[in-house]
């Protein structure tokens, strides 16, 4: 049912866990689908004004209650956002996450899970550090 690549990510996810004092936390998922993801990110802040371009995700971890695809996609999205600026991460789409994994049709929603958690984490970051939003661009 699942590709070799997906099984590899599912069986040995590299980014599982919580981050103490995370700068932002994002949750996504739906109990009806049976998949729920928590994403924790640590951000390297910059004194420069343009936070989208200058604030960098230096670490991220996840905890996911879900099927094999949901766990693999959670790990993959973390892998993709590490080292990226907020602006770069924000542009990621579910397709970027699922690329190369050969997701079964009924599992496409699992690639959306990670992106939703990321979006919610970014919103959380914006709220917590509302001053960054007020910076003139």
């Amino acid at each position, binding site marked *: 049912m699942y590709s070799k690549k997906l099984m590899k990510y599912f069986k040995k996810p590299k980014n599982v866990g919580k981050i103490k004092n995370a700068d932002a936390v994002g949750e996504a998922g739906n109990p*009806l689908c049976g998949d729920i993801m928590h994403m924790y990110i640590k951000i390297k802040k910059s004194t420069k004004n343009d936070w989208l371009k200058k604030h960098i995700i230096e670490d991220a971890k996840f905890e996911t*209650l*879900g099927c094999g695809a949901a766990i693999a996609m959670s790990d993959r999205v973390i892998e993709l956002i590490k080292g990226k600026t907020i602006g770069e991460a924000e542009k990621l789409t579910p397709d970027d996450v699922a690329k190369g994994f050969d997701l079964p049709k009924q599992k496409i929603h699992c690639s959306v899970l990670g992106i939703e958690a990321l979006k919610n984490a970014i919103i959380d970051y914006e709220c917590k550090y509302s001053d960054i939003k007020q910076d003139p661009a």
Partner: protein
Amino acid sequence: MSKIKEQIYFDYAATTPIDPRVKRVMEPYLDDKFANASSVHSMGQDSANAVLKARDTIAGFLNCKANEVVFTSGATECNNTVFKGVSEAMKEYGNHIITTKIEHPCVLESCKYLEKRGFKVTYLPVGSNGVVKVSDVEKALTKKTILVSIMYVNNEVGTIQPIADIGKLIKSFRSLSSVPRFPIFHTDAAQAVNYLDCDVDKLGVDLMSLSGHKIYGPKGVGALYIRKGTLIEPLMHGGRQEDGMRAGTLNTPGIVGMGSAIQEIKKTTLRQAQGGENQENKRIKFLRDELINKILKTIPNSKLNGDKKLRVANNVNVSFKGVEGESLLMLLDGEGIAVSTGSACASGSIKPSHVLMALGRGPLESHGSIRITIGRFTKESDIKKLLAVLLKAVKRLREISFF
């Protein structure tokens, strides 16, 4: 170099392996005894005799007449024939059908189909133990009820439904009606045949669905018991096979195999009837209980789904908090252990199991269940291996989840 892992099978409710004795009996009919059982020549009559013998065996098992057994392609065809055939034949008498929320999809989908065509369907609830209440059936019966269909054993949680009691209730309700056998009482016994008494008179059923591949017989064959005088139309039209009740060339090897599979079950139940014990079922039940007790004892926050006592001998269905069933299935599969998930997630739907939801489990709990079904060839060492692997896999997934 990759080592080939030994596969251990814990999915007997999905399908059983063919018993080697059954396979031996079938083989000639896949080989030189290939003739069409409807052909008049002696080769054809050889096949016809083999079908006759299988029919007699099954009739004996059900305690019915041979001409009340109709061979089909399986339980799905049986159930479709029942719903579509009875509603068509009885439509002038009423438009109401009673069934339960925990039936197999082939029943529920047939009901949906009939609802679109003007029939009214009552889907009875079950208690948190997964058993339907006879009093709920009684309350649902109306003068317009043409069919009551309740499964004998649930395929997901293994709960045994009170078929004989419902049979009695329907009999007493009928005495008020002028139409013969109204309403008609059907049970899907696909999951029951190996373990429970299927005497149609004791159960008081008019129709019963059976499947070959759940009883160590081949796939693609089933049998529908139709009590004489029951109003029902065929699903398949064509030749005059099965007295016009099911057209299509008889599946001789399949039918012979199903007869042989029933014969093997009869042997064990015969010993039981003579005062001996049904050793096979006793052994399976012992292993099943050991499995349930050890899981609940060694894995914290695990829960058995479905009644512990009103439960078929081979079924274990458990939920683990903080674990999703399909990911657990995948991890076990990686260790060479085949189980099934209670959630339909793996089979193309992301909805939680309709059966567990009907038992009042929340969606997360429903997604967090696996079904382990054992059978004739399960060994005690298999159970030990499963327990060890299961413990580790649940622990691993709880590390990944936020449990």
